[in-house]
C-alpha cells in the first residue's frame, strides 16, 4: 500500500512539473492526472492543493462538479452508453438496460471482477448512427440489445484466446 502511495505522489509530481501553478490550470492538471491513473487517486489531491496553494476542498469541489472526473479506479474496459436525444428516440435507454442486465451493474458502477465500467455519456455527436455506445475509445454505431451481446461475446472470446496463449 505504502508503495502505491509513493508511486501516486511521484507520478502526480511529474504531472505538476509540466504545468504552471496558476489556479486556471486546475482543470488541465486534474485531466492529466486522470489520463495517467484512469481516475483521481485520493493521494494526488493534497499534492495538487499544495501545488496551487488552494484548500484541498477546492480541488474536490472541481473534481466532483464535472462529470468527466472519477474518484474510483476504472474497470479494464469502459462502456459508455450515449443518452443523447437521437439515441433516446432510437432506443438508447433500451440499450442501457441491456448493458445493465448483462453486466449486472448500474450506470456509474464497475463489475465486481473489475472487467467492465458502465456509464452514460451526454452525447458523442454521432447522432446519425444512433443508438451509440462508446466501448473503450471506439464508437459503436447502431448498438441495440443484440449488438450488446455481440460486443460482450467478442470480449469473452478475446479473453479466452489470451488465456490459452498464456498457458
Amino acid at each position: 500500500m505504502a508503495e502505491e502511495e509513493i508511486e501516486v505522489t511521484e507520478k502526480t509530481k511529474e504531472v505538476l512539473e509540466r504545468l504552471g501553478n496558476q489556479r486556471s490550470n486546475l482543470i488541465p492538471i486534474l485531466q492529466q492526472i486522470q489520463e495517467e491513473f484512469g481516475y483521481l487517486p485520493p493521494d494526488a489531491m493534497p499534492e495538487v492543493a499544495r501545488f496551487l496553494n488552494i484548500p484541498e476542498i477546492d480541488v474536490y469541489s472541481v473534481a466532483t462538479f464535472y462529470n468527466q472526473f472519477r474518484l474510483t479506479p476504472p474497470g479494464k474496459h469502459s462502456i459508455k452508453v450515449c443518452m443523447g436525444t437521437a439515441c433516446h428516440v432510437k432506443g438508447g435507454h433500451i440499450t442501457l438496460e441491456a448493458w445493465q442486465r448483462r453486466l449486472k451493474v448500474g450506470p456509474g458502477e464497475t463489475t465486481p471482477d473489475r472487467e467492465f465500467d458502465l456509464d452514460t455519456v451526454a452525447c458523442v455527436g454521432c447522432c446519425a448512427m444512433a443508438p451509440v455506445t462508446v466501448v473503450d475509445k471506439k464508437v459503436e454505431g447502431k448498438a441495440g440489445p443484440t449488438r450488446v451481446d455481440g460486443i460482450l461475446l467478442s470480449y469473452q472470446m478475446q479473453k479466452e484466446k489470451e488465456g490459452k496463449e498464456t498457458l
Partner: protein
Amino acid sequence: MREVIGATVASTFDEIKKRAESHWHELRDDQMPVILVGTATCGRAAGALEVLQAVKDVVGKKSIDCLITEVGCLGHCYSEPLIIIRKPGYPSICYGHVTPVLAENLVINLLLNDDPSLEFVLGALEENELIPSFSDFPRARYEKRILLKNCGQIDPDDIDHSIGNGGYQGLVKTLRMKPEEVVEEVKRSKLRGLGGAGFPAGEKWEVCRRSQGEPKYLICNGDEGDPGAFMDRAILESDPHSVLEGMIIAGYAIGARHGYIYVRAEYPLAVQKVQNAIRQAAELHLIGENILGSDFSFDITLFQGSGAFVCGEATALIASIEGKPGIPRHRPPRLATKGLFGKPTVLNNVKTLAYVPHIIKNGVDWFAQMGTEKSKGTAVFALAGKIVNTGLVEVPMGTTLRQLLFQVGGGIPKGKRFKAVQIGGPSGGCLPEEALDIPIDFDSLQERGAMMGSGGMVVLDEDDCMVEVARYFLDFTQKESCGKCTLCRLGTKQMLEILEDITKGRGKIEDLKTLEELAEDIKMGSLCGLGKTAPNPVLTTLRYFGDEYEAHIKEKRCPALMCQSLTAYYILPEKCARGCDACVGTCTVEAISTDPKRRIKVIDQEKCVKCNTCMVACPPQYDAVVKLSPPDRVPKSK
C-alpha cells in the same frame, strides 16, 4: 503606417499562399488519382478507419500510384462511411455505405479497370455527363454551403488545404484595416450569434473594444452540449482553420492579445484536430507574435471541457477556464466589460467565428443578400432521429421547416407519419405539423415557443411519445442543473417526478396545471439560460400535444406505444408462423417460448423486459409481434 504594415503582411502571405496552392493543386490537378476517406467521428463510428486501412492495403498490394487523404465530414452522415475517388478523366465520385471489401473493389474497378461501379455511387462532386452530381439532388435547390463548404473536401490536418481554398485571406484583409473598421464591418453585416441566442456579434465586439482593462480576451465556445447537435463538432473536425481565422480576426478587432478555444471533453477527435491546427498556424506565423509581420500579436490556447452541460453558458464557461466549478453568475456586469479573470471578454460560438472571415473577405453586401430581414446568412442544422438523410445541412435563413425536413432531409423513413420536430435541444421545443411552414430564423421560432438553439433538430414520428420526450429533456436538464438557483434545482426535479408518474400511468389530471405553474416559476426564478429554458420542452408539448398527456392520465394508455410501463408486447396467434423461431432465438431474456399445445410462440409477460428485439426479428412477411397499450389488452393465456 498601416499601408507599410499592409504591404508586409500581403507579401508575407503571398509566399505562404503560393506554396500552399502548389501543394493543394497536387490534389486537384488531373495528374494523379486521389482517394479521399471521410474519417470524422461519425465516419469512424460507421467503420471508416477499417475502410481507410483496406484502401491503403489494396493500393500497396497492387502498387497503384495515387494519393490517399483523410478528410472530415461531408454532411451525408446517413451513408457513412464515405469515400471519394478522383481519377483523371472522371469526375470526383463519392461512394456511400462502403465496407472494407467494397472499398478494395471500388479502387481496383475505377483505378485499374476504368469501371466507375455505378451501382454503389452516391453522387459526383462536380456536374458532368457521366454520373448524377450532388447538385442534381433535389436538396441542392435549398442548400447553400458556406461554413460547410470545405468540410469533407480538405484534409483538416494540412493547413495548405485550407489556404489553397481561400483560408486566411480574410485575415490578410483584416490586418490592412483599422480594428474599428473591422468592428464596423461586422456590425453592418448584422451577423447574429449562431450559438442560439442570436445576439448581434458586432455590438458585443464594440462594447468590448471600448471597455477599459487589459488584457482583453476572446473565447470561442465549442462546448456544444445540446444532445442531438453536432455541427460544431463537424466544423472543428473538418475545417478547424476557418474557426481559428475567425478568432484571430475577432481578437484584432476587439484588441485582445489572448484567445481561448473551449472544446468539450466528449469530442476527443475535435480536440486533436484543433490542437494540430493551432500548431500549424503558429509555424506559419498566422498565430503568435507579430502575425504575418504586422504589429498584431495573438495566441490561442485550447481548453478542454470536462463534461458539464451548463458550461455552454458564457459565465459558467469562464468560471471553468478560471479553474472553478462551472456555476453561472449574475449579469451585468456584462462579459464585454468584465469577463475572464475580470477583464473585458468576447465569447462567440464556433459558427459565428467561422463566418467572420467570409464576411470580411466577401463584403457585407454579399452576406446581407442571404437570409431574411433580421436574420442574415445561412444556418447549419444537424438532422437526426426519424429522418431519411441524417447529417448536416446548411440552408439560408428563412427556409421553411417543411422544405428543410422534407426536401433536404428526405422526409420520414419507413413510410411513417411525421409527428414533431424537436429544435434547439433541451432549451428548445417540439413543433408539430402545423408549424412546419414557418420560416427558420431567430425570431419566428421563438414566437412558436421553440428556439434556434445550437441548431440540433431531432425528428420524431408517430412512434415517439411526446410525454416521454418531454420527460427525457427534463431528466437531462435536471441532472445538469448546477444547483445554484433553488427553482431550477428543485423545480425541475418536481416537474420530472410528475412527468415520470404520467409516463408510468400514475398521473392525475391536475398535474397538468401544476406543470404549467412550475414551468413559469422556474423561468422566472433562474439566473441562466439553462433554467430559463428548461421548461420549454414541457410547455411546447403541453401546448401542441395536450391530448397525449390526457390519454396517459385518463386511459393509462400511451398512444405512441413508447412508454414501457404502459405497453406490452404480444404475438398475434393468427399471424405467427409457428415453425419459425426467430423471436425465441433473439429474445435477450428468454421470455418467449413455444406453447406445446397450440404450437405458437408466447411471451411471458413477467419475464419480458420490452427491449423490442423480437419485434425487429419477426420476419416482415409474418409481422406477428405487436405492441398493445394499456398492457391489460393482452389476452390472458389459457
